[in-house]
């Protein structure tokens, strides 16, 4: 019996089969892959397949490439990736272009490859495959904007990949190993002048969309296809959280970065007009909770274990409810073709089911009791309380307020209500999308009502009870009064036809200026220089045919140019000049090809002789 089967390889190996199938068979096949992967993971949990340890190890120049590093941490992430992939594939079942399915499967498969990677080179390989396959999910929208956004996406991620590779080389040089199972000693890096952790952290932070390196996310995700965006939300950022937990747990820098992220996303979302961009900024906000949790996760402490548990639980729940939110918003885009709040409104009459399913995602992200946000986000906040970090606690709770405001209030109100007459004709989206949304909503509620399904998967024992009365009361107060403030100020929250500048301004504007500089001034300078050099060369070649005569000609020319010259004298000189130039030898007679080769051979053999003699 096999010790283990890599779930990611199931997805990757399915890719060549997808174009060969058609119709119902293809749909059945597409859905069977995540189910098969889920069965594998279940077997792993039950012990039928390996549930802990290192497997699928390849030898590479004396080092070990570990494709299967299995422990509770990688297992819990694998569970959510596979479950979410099932919902998302169902959502995308109606897509006829095989390329989109192939891109999605490669993306999911390589994410699972990252999750089980036990060494840095395997990690790097799958990291790059993730970036490239995600690119196609953006490009398949086939608009000019999505082309440009995809280009920016891949440039940022290739930069991140280069940082990662550089960091891996530095790490290997200083420690001699490529293993990826211990935290990188981030705080000691400065003292020991070993910059590998910095580079690797930089690469991880880019994928986790930590400001100021985050601009690729709200830039690219709204430009992706309706179904592609749903895939994108789950895998890149959460696999980055996973690798942060493995490599940088307890790094204090992450606590602050995470809290700032949480608020950053919320502030920018107030200003957003495009519904999917608003949700993209909320991804940044929620990942901030996870990053903050990772930062607080000092191993060996009770509060640290709570923080790591919270980060993982939040990642688990976030994948599900964010997918649901993007599915809902994507359904609106699919049906109306529009995504801006200024252009939407009054759709409740046509799409009530989509609205209610979307709202389940909104209740979850806001942390309403009975939905899955309440059991996960609050764990991270509790960890910040246990560590006695008041500023962090305030920032995280503040971000909760903002999250409810936009996702639960501003977006649905602007899309489904806020106008008495609907903006356009609409209807409910296709069946498969509704079914996918319903199933995801069911999972959100299931985890909210019975959190122990998730808590039992977490790596550390869970000492947290979300459903206690004080907690319920404080959360309800927070949410209710946020609603009151929203209702009073709802006039200020209409969409505006603007875009908001973000840190991508730097590479978009400065990049454009650099390109302009290269195309115009620099290019002109180069051509000019080239011309002048060639003119000088031609002059010397001409002069070399008969230097004395050339000198005479030049002197005559100079004489002609002297001021106050007699016109007849001028004519005389001109005549002499023409005579001289006629007598000037023409170009050197060109040798035939054979003679030239012979000359070359003679010179080369002469050189060879010289070399042998002096040896």
């Amino acid at each position, binding site marked *: 019996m096999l010790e283990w089967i890599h779930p990611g390889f199931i997805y990757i190996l399915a890719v060549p089969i997808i174009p060969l199938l058609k119709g119902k068979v293809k749909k059945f096949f597409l859905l069977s892959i995540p189910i098969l992967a889920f069965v594998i993971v279940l077997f792993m949990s039950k012990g039928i397949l390996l549930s802990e340890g290192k497997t699928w190890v390849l030898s590479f120049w004396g080092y070990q490439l570990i494709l299967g590093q299995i422990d509770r941490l990688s297992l819990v992430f694998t569970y959510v990736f596979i479950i979410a992939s099932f919902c998302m594939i169902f959502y995308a079942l109606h897509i006829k272009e095989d390329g989109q399915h192939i891109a999605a499967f490669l993306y999911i498969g390589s994410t699972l490859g990252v999750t089980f990677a036990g060494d840095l080179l395997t990690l790097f390989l799958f990291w790059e495959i993730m970036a490239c396959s995600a690119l196609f999910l953006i490009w398949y929208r086939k608009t*000019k904007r999505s082309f*440009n956004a995809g280009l920016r996406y891949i440039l940022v991620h290739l930069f991140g990949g280069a940082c990662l590779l550089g960091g891996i080389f530095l790490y290997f040089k200083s420690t001699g190993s490529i293993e990826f199972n211990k935290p990188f000693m981030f705080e000691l890096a400065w003292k020991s002048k070993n910059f590998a952790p910095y580079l690797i952290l930089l690469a991880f932070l880019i994928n986790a969309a930590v400001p100021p390196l985050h601009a690729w996310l709200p830039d690219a995700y709204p430009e992706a296809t309706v179904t592609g965006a749903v895939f994108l939300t789950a895998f890149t950022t959460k696999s980055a959280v996973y690798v942060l937990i493995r490599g940088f747990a307890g790094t204090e820098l992450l606590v602050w970065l995470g809290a700032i992220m949480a608020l950053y996303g*919320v*502030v*920018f979302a*107030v*200003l957003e007009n495009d519904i999917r961009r608003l949700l993209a900024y909320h991804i940044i906000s929620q990942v901030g909770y996870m990053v903050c949790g990772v930062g607080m996760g000092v191993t060996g402490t009770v509060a640290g274990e709570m923080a790591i548990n919270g980060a993982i639980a939040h990642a688990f729940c976030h994948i599900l409810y964010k997918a649901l939110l993007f599915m809902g918003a994507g359904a609106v885009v699919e049906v109306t073709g529009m995504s801006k709040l200024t252009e939407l409104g009054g759709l409740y009459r046509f799409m009530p089911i989509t609205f209610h399913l979307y709202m389940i995602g909104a209740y979850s992200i806001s942390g309403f009791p009975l939905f899955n946000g309440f059991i996960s986000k609050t764990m991270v906040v509790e960890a910040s*309380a*246990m560590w*006695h970090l*008041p500023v962090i*606690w305030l920032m995280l*709770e*503040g971000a909760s*307020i*903002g999250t409810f*405001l936009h996702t639960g209030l501003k977006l649905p109100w602007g899309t489904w209500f806020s106008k008495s007459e609907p903006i356009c004709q609409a209807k409910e989206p296709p069946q498969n999308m509704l079914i996918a949304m319903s199933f995801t909503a069911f999972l959100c509620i299931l985890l909210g009502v019975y959190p122990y399904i998730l808590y039992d998967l977490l790596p550390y024992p869970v000492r947290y009870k979300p459903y*206690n*009365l*004080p907690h319920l*009361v*404080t*959360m*309800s*107060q*927070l*949410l*209710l*009064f*946020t609603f*009151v*403030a*929203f209702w*009073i*100020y709802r006039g*200020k*929250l209409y969409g*505006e*036809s*603007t*875009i*908001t*500048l*973000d840190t991508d301004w730097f590479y*978009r504007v400065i990049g*454009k200026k650099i*390109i*302009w500089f290269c*195309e115009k001034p620099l290019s002109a300078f180069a051509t000019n220089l080239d011309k002048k050099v060639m003119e000088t060369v031609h002059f010397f070649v001409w002069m070399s045919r008969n230097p004395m005569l050339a000198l005479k000609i030049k002197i005559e020319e100079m004489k002609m140019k002297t001021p106050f010259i007699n016109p007849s004298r001028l004519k005389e000189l001109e005549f002499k000049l023409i005579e001289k130039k006629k007598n000037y030898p023409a170009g050197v007679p060109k040798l035939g090809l054979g003679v030239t080769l012979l000359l070359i051979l003679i010179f080369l053999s002469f050189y060879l002789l010289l070399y042998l003699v002096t040896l």
Partner: protein
Amino acid sequence: MKKNSISLKKGFYGILLLSLIVGVFVDIMLKPESHFIWDRLPFFHALYGFFGCIFIILGSKALGHYWLQKKENYYDDDIHSENK
């Protein structure tokens, strides 16, 4: 319809009031763990939710109007779009 919305409003205010009362009740009777000084204040979460929301709305809008928001075609005169 109007009667409906009035009773809806009344119901909502009722829930608001209830959350505050239950909050005070829980604070006095159950004495939950307080990690921070503000845990002792009775209506902290309600006030934080209300004023926090207002602050986020007004603050972010100010940030946008005075600095970050631009017309939709801000980035659109790309050299790239001209070439391609």
